């Protein structure tokens, strides 16, 4: 049963001061002694009071503002953008507005954005959680504010999640490369401690092991953050002893870095490449890039649906939805395509 959100009146009662005093303190107006201000701040913190950043009353008769907050990891990443697109489309059908922020995987930024959106009275939040602890949102959850996590699980809170099966996807990609006869494969990924990277690395390793192949022949390079870093890492591997004959890249930006490196050396037809996540013109490259992909459209759609369902019924049990991945085999893996 959702609790009622604390108001300035509640803060005033708890602090033992008048409403006007609370208003002055919250709005940063002068005319309040420091001691009194402290009492007000303490009372507000104890009650988890959140300042209402709205001008006037935004809520309609339904008690909702018909707006949702969305936090993506990086607003200009293609996967995040596709997710954003899908959520906008789903929201539009229900005449709901979306306000979006980009966390850049930074827990502090995420916290400021989440609290900023909630202070602006969004009806719920969809987020791609950073590695940080989200327990500061527990109070909101207890108040009945629906929160849905997409793409990776949140730390510190238990909420509905919608994710793709990254482990299975990576397994399928490695299996395909093994089928093509590759016995020395490089896996290039983003920061290994991030959930999606960890899952894709684990999936790749497990499938390699299941095939009875020596662990050392699957080389994992993680922590790659830019196209340039990726290109360099791959070039270093290709210049090393016993270079890989195939490469599996864990996300779209890393795939494009690998494409650059291979094209630079004229090796795009010699070294097989499979990437996780499709990207803009993977089909236009020569060879066209083979990928294992998630469906950000479905992920976004299901996440929005789940959030809206929870808005209608707070008592729904927490649900963890896992969607499958699909292989799109073009040419870069070695298939005729």
């Amino acid at each position, binding site marked *: 049963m959702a609790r009622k959100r604390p108001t300035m009146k509640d803060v005033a009662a708890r602090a033992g001061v008048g409403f006007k005093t609370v208003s002055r303190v*919250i*709005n*940063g107006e002068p005319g309040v002694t420091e001691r009194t201000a402290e009492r007000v701040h303490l009372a507000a913190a104890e009650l988890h009071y959140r*300042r209402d*950043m*709205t*001008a*006037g009353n*935004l809520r309609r008769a339904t008690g909702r503002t018909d*707006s949702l907050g969305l936090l993506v990891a*990086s*607003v*200009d990443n*293609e996967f995040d*953008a596709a997710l*954003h*697109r899908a959520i*906008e489309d789903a929201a539009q059908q229900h005449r709901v*507005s*979306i*306000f*979006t*922020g*980009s966390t*850049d*995987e*930074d*827990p*502090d*930024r995420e916290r*400021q*954005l989440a609290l*900023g*959106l909630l202070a*602006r*009275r969004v009806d719920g939040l969809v987020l791609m959680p950073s590695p940080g602890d989200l327990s500061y949102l527990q109070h909101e959850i207890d108040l009945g504010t629906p929160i849905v996590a997409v793409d990776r699980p949140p730390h510190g809170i238990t909420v509905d999640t919608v994710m793709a099966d990254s482990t299975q996807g990576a397994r399928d990609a490695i299996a395909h490369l093994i089928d093509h006869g590759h016995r020395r494969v490089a896996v290039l990924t983003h920061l290994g401690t991030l959930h999606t990277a960890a899952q894709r690395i684990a999936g790749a390793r497990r499938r390699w092991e299941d095939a009875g192949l020596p662990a050392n022949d699957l080389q994992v390079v993680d922590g790659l*953050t830019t196209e340039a870093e990726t290109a360099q890492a791959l070039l270093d591997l290709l210049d090393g002893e016993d270079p890989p004959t195939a490469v599996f890249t864990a996300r779209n930006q890393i795939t*494009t870095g690998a*494409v*650059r490196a291979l*094209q630079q050396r004229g090796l795009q037809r010699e070294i097989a490449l499979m990437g996780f996540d499709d*990207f*803009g*013109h993977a*089909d*236009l*490259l020569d060879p066209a890039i083979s990928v294992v992909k998630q469906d950000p459209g479905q992920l976004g759609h299901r996440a929005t649906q789940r959030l809206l369902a929870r808005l209608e019924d707070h008592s729904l049990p927490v649900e963890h939805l896992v969607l499958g991945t699909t292989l799109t085999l073009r040419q870069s893996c070695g298939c005729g395509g």
Partner: protein
Amino acid sequence: MSTHDALRGLPTLRQVAEAAGVSIKTASRALNDEAHVAPITYERVKKAAAELGYRPNLLARDLRSHRTSNVVAMVIADVSNPFYLAIAYAAGQVLAAQGLLLFTGVSDEDPASEARVISGFLERRVAGLLVVSSRTDHRHLQHHAESRTPTVFLDRPGHGLEVDEVMFDNVGGSRAAIDHLLAQGHRRIGVIGDLGSLPTHRERIAGVRRALAEAEVPIDEGLIVTDAHDADGAKAAMRQLLARPSPPTAVFATNNRMAVGGMRAVADAAHPPALIGFDDVELADVLGVSVVSNSPADMGTVGAEMLLERIHGRAGRRRRVRLPTELVVRRSTATPLE
């Protein structure tokens, strides 16, 4: 010195980044004490900031006392186009270094949605607005934009408003593209364009017409296809152009999505027409496609800087900044017409 005087004409994040030899994103992270910054980089950025006299978080006192909202809102015309997302990303980095969060709302090139998104933000108290607009009339924003909420228009002008604007040199860039095609010997030049209602598109078409007129090349209206709007539309438009009895020998696409659609249509063609697009395309160098290159990141950076100046009380006439474009010739137009 009051906070209001503080930011006028003072050093920018861009200058700090340049001095430290890092990207704006890295400089912003270092100044905000965020994760993923190497200690040596952190030191370099702090040192550069100190030497230049750049002070992050000038609004800190105002933000803590809640006198100023800590949020800037941006209206994006189209979330599917990486161009606008790159603008948002760059703006976000510059604002973050001053303790401001960036929220975005999407209008989908629909004037009514745009008005709704902007009202939604204004109702929620924002320190400033960045707008990529799809409207041709903005007088309804006059009260807010000119007095209460500092506003900067990006990519498309604010009609009827006295606000700062940052746009690309659309006319000049298109002229350069057409002049290049003419220099390669092309006389039948096709154009694949975005929505006819967009000011950027209109300026680019104007640039095409001007270049052809100056070269005294007659304009065949049948070679100009507009309202293609997405990659599939552009693909169909290219097919349409090539199916003509006298097909074009070269095609100019007025933005990145039009270029990609056009490329898709001729991917398997034995003798594709020469192709040049306005805006960068990802992996353009690998694909070998000529472009009129511009920097949406610069647009986001400059726009955010101008907005920060206004938030800090800079008065004075509105400014319109035209960012330059650069012709980058690659395989797709490098060979002159026989």
